[in-house]
């Protein structure tokens, strides 16, 4: 029984060894254009302003796409490829700047400005539709004051004309 157990363990080790060898020998399939363009779309070549790498027609960008294809074929992950491009050509190649330092402003400011604008608009609309008498406190002598003011105004006008 004990012998059978050890034989099973040995068979398992040999089987796993063969499996890993076979898997390692399998060639990585050639990456499709879609796979390359998926990553290329997230990158911008500094030479071609405002043109994503996946649609840029220049030689420089074609070379970059070929490089991405090679890296994918070698089994690199999307993050590894993007990291390589940042290291080689600077952070400005990224379509989406990393969320560090001043770059945070890009992510924070637009929603803050939109919310602030919505708040201001909401307040303005409320005030336009429902004007509130500021000094019309209940029980005030506003009408009396108004009459007095009008009377004095008329008196002044009479004096002048």
């Amino acid at each position, binding site marked *: 029984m004990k012998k059978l157990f050890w034989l099973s363990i040995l068979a398992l080790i040999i089987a796993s060894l063969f499996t890993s060898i076979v898997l390692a020998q399998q060639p990585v399939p050639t990456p499709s254009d879609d796979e390359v363009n998926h990553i290329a779309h997230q990158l911008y*070549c*500094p*030479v071609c302003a405002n043109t994503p790498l996946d649609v840029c027609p*220049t*030689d*420089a960008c074609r*070379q*970059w796409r*070929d*490089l991405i294809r090679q890296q994918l074929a070698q089994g690199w992950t999307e993050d590894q490829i993007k990291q390589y491009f*940042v*290291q*080689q*050509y*600077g*952070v*400005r190649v990224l379509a989406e700047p990393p969320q560090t330092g*001043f770059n945070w*402003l890009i992510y924070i*400011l637009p929603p803050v400005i939109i919310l602030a604008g919505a708040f201001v608009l909401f*307040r303005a609309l409320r*005030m*336009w539709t429902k*004007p*509130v*008498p*500021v*000094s*019309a406190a209940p029980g005030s002598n*506003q009408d009396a*004051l*108004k009459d007095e*003011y009008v009377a*004095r*105004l008329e008196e*002044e006008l009479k004096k002048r004309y």
Partner: protein
Amino acid sequence: MIDSNPITTRNHRGAPPPIWAQIIIWVALLGLLAVVYFELNRSQQGQIGPGDQVSNFSMPLFSGYELNGQSQIQLSDFRGKVVMVNFWASWCKPCEQEAPDLEQAWQFYKDDGRVVFIGADYVDTEPEARAYLAKFGITFANGPDMGTRASQLFRIKGVPETYFIDQQGVLQYAQIGPFSSVDEIKSIINPMLK
């Protein structure tokens, strides 16, 4: 005389925001304007020009294109020498026009010991860059403009661009576009050696 009267009209304005909120809003607005100003100012600066002190920078070199056995160089290493920094790329057709002239000029000066040529490969891929260097038989020091740091320091607008830095680290001449002959390159370097 009509003196000031109590307000009897209807006021359509709500209470103003508290003073602390106003201060925060104004500080944030001014800060934002300052950032925009500095960024615009920086982006609209032209290339560095003759007479400007060139800031120190470092760059790696391709294997086989090292300088005095060094695979990583710094501009400050060459204080006391005339330094030529040429920005190029394998995809750049005008660069091909001047490549043989640059190599010929390097062959002329390399034994002198007072001149250093550095090629900075701009936004390029290494296999294509190496093929380009081999095609034109380039032998002077060359390396990738890693992270486009050197090109940003010189604020280049494209390739080829070539910068001549004197013994004190001051830029003496900037060539925008390709050279048309070896003599043109010599006519820039020779006065700097006197």
